[in-house]
C-alpha cells in the first residue's frame, strides 16, 4: 500500500497501463507540459513522448470522436476533458456515436475508450464549470459510468476502465484531487464495475451517496450516531453497471433509505435508486425513501449560494432522522 492523492493515483494508473499496453494513449487539452490542470498526466510526456501524451486543440467534439475512431481501429484511447461540463460540447460523439456504435453495427465494433475528467462544486467555477453530469450519461445505454470517491477507488476503477472494451465515462471530483488514501501497489489492482462498497455498516438507515457525498454521508452518519441512529453508508462506485443488490440487501436490514447526490434532484439517479428499492424491497420499507439532490437551479458562483444549492450534511442528517421517525 502507498498513501497517495487521488490525482497521483490516477496518474500512476495511466502510466502503468501505458507501460503495459502500447495501444493505450492519452489526448486532451494541456496534458503535455502542464500535465493537465489537475496534474493527472504530470511529466508523463517525458516517459511516453508526445505521440502518446498528446495535446489537442480546443476541439472537444473532434477529440472525443477521434477517440471513438481510434478505438474502433484498435487503440485504447483515454480522452481527458479539463471539465466534464465540456462533454456537452461533444454530446453527439458520446451519446449518438460512442454509446451506440457497437449495438447498431450488430456487435461488430469494439470501443475501448475512456473519457475522464473532473466535475462538481468547490472551486467557485460557477454554472458552466461546476455541474454534476453522471446522471445524464446513465440514461443512454451503451456507456459505462464510474464515480470514484477516493484514491484507491480511482486507481482500481480506472484500471478496470482502461482494460474494458466498452466506452467508459470516468467522473472524477475536483474537490477530491488533493485527498489522500492508501492505494494498493499491485499493478493489476482492479475494482470490478458494479460492486458497491459499504463504507460503514449500520442497522437503522441506509444512506447511498457517491463522489463528494460519500464523505458527507459519513459525516452525517457520525452526527446520527450521537443521536443513537446507526447508519449504513453505501458508495455505488460505478453508476453503470449499478449494484442494486447491495443496496436492496441493506434496505432489507434497515428498512429505510436516503439517497443523496450533488447532481440535480429532478430526474437524478437517486430517483432511480429509490424506485428500484421500492420495487425490490417494498415490504421491508418502514418509511418512504428520501432522495436529496441539488436544487433545480444552475450552480451559482457565490460560495454561500453554491452551498445553498447542493445538499448539506445537515440535510442528510434531517432526512435520516425523518425516515427513522425521529
Amino acid at each position: 500500500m502507498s498513501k497517495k492523492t487521488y490525482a497521483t493515483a490516477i496518474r500512476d494508473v495511466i502510466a502503468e497501463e501505458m507501460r503495459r499496453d502500447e495501444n493505450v494513449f492519452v489526448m486532451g487539452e494541456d496534458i503535455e507540459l502542464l500535465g493537465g490542470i489537475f496534474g493527472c498526466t504530470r511529466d508523463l510526456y517525458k516517459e511516453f513522448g508526445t505521440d502518446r501524451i498528446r495535446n489537442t486543440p480546443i476541439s472537444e467534439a473532434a477529440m472525443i470522436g477521434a477517440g471513438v475512431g481510434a478505438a474502433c481501429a484498435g487503440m485504447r484511447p483515454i480522452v481527458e476533458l479539463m471539465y466534464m461540463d465540456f462533454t456537452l460540447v461533444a454530446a453527439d460523439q458520446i451519446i449518438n456515436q460512442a454509446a451506440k456504435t457497437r449495438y447498431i453495427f450488430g456487435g461488430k465494433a469494439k470501443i475501448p475508450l475512456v473519457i475522464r475528467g473532473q466535475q462538481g462544486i468547490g472551486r467557485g467555477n460557477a454554472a458552466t464549470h461546476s455541474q454534476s453530469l453522471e446522471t445524464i450519461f446513465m440514461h443512454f445505454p451503451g456507456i459505462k459510468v464510474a464515480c470514484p470517491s477516493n484514491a484507491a477507488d480511482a486507481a482500481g476503477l480506472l484500471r478496470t476502465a482502461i482494460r474494458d472494451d466498452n466506452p467508459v465515462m470516468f467522473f472524477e471530483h475536483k474537490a477530491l484531487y488533493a485527498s489522500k488514501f492508501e492505494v494498493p501497489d499491485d499493478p493489476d489492482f482492479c475494482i470490478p464495475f458494479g460492486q458497491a462498497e459499504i463504507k460503514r455498516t449500520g442497522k437503522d438507515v441506509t444512506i447511498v451517496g457517491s463522489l463528494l457525498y460519500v464523505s458527507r454521508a459519513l459525516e452525517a452518519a457520525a452526527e446520527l450516531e450521537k443521536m443513537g441512529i446507526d447508519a449504513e453508508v453505501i458508495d455505488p462506485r460505478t453508476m453503470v453497471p449499478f449494484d442494486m443488490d447491495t443496496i436492496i440487501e441493506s434496505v432489507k436490514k434497515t428498512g429505510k433509505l436516503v439517497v443523496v447526490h450533488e447532481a440535480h434532484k429532478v430526474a437524478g439517479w437517486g430517483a432511480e435508486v429509490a424506485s428500484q428499492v421500492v420495487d425490490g424491497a417494498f415490504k421491508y420499507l418502514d418509511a418512504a425513501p428520501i432522495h436529496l439532490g441539488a436544487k433545480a437551479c444552475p450552480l451559482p458562483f457565490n460560495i454561500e449560494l453554491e452551498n445553498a444549492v447542493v445538499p448539506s450534511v445537515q440535510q442528510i442528517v434531517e432526512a435520516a432522522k425523518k425516515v427513522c421517525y425521529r
Partner: protein
Amino acid sequence: MISKEQKLWIYEIMNKIRYFELKALRLFEENKLRGSVHLYAGEEAVAAAVCAQLTDDDYITSTHRGHGHCIAKGAQLDKAMAELMGKETGYCKGRSGSMHIADFTKGNLGANAIVGGGIPIATGAALAAKLQKNDKVAVSFFGDGASNEGTFHESLNLAAVWKLPIIFICENNGFGISVPVAQSTSVENISDRAVGYGIPGVTVDGNDVFAVYEAFETAVKRAKAGDGPTLIECKTYRTLGHWTGDPQTYRDKKDVEMWRDTKDPIQLFKKVLVDAGDFTAAELDAIEEAAKVEADAAAEFAINSPNPDPADVMDDVFYDA
C-alpha cells in the same frame, strides 16, 4: 480616422481595464476573490479600439477573459468588481463571478466560460439585427484557441451565407493556456480561415490601437452595407498568466518581459498621442491616475457590498411575467 475625443476615450478605457485587472489580481492574491479569473492585461487595445466604434445598441459576446470587453462596452468598474467577488451588487447578483459578466442594457450579451460558446450567440444577435433592419452590428470576441472549436467554423459559414452584420474578432495572444498556437492550429494566421468561408480575413497588430481601429472601421462599413461578416485577427500577447496563479512554465520569461516592456499597448498609444501633440503627457498621466483611483474605489465598493441572500437562490431560473 480616430477623432481626438475617441482617442481620449480609448486611452481612458485601456487604463481602466489595466488597473481593474491589476486590482483583481491583488485581491486574488490576498484571498479576497476566488474562482477562475483570467486577466486581459496586455490586450487592451483590441477591446478599446473596437468598442470605441460601437453604441450601446450594438452587441458583443465575450469570453472567459472578458473583463476588458465588458468595461469597454460600458461596464462600471464597481459593479464588475462586485461580481468578481460574488456580491449582490455585482452585474449578475453574484451568480456569475468573473467568467459570465453580462450587461444587456449596454448590448453586452455576456462573457462566456465555454470556449467558443459566444460565437454563435453573437451570430444570432446579428441575425436579429438583420431581420429587424435596425442597422445594429454584432461583434464576437474570442481567442485563437476558440477558433479550433466547431462553433467558430459553423458560425462563420452561417454568417457568411446569410450576410449577417457581424465582425469576428480573434484575439490571438499566442497561447491557449499552455499550448502555443502553432501546436494546435493548422494555419499561420487565424485570418487565413476566412478564405474557407468566402469572407475577408485580415491580420493586424493587436497592440496597435490604430491598426485595430482601421480594420474594424472597414469591417463595420461592410457589415452595415449588407455585405456580411469579416474576420479580424488581432495579434497580441497576454502579459499575465492564463489565470491568476498560473506558474507559466510553458513560456520564456524573456518573451513576457519583451512584450510587457517594449510592446505595451497603453505605452505605445500614449507615445503616439504625445508625439502627435494630441495630448500632453501630464494630461494622460492624470487619466491614468484617475483609472487607478477608480479601480481602488471599485474594490472598496465590492469588499463592502453584501453577499446575496441564499434564500433568493432560485430567483431567475425562469422568466416570470
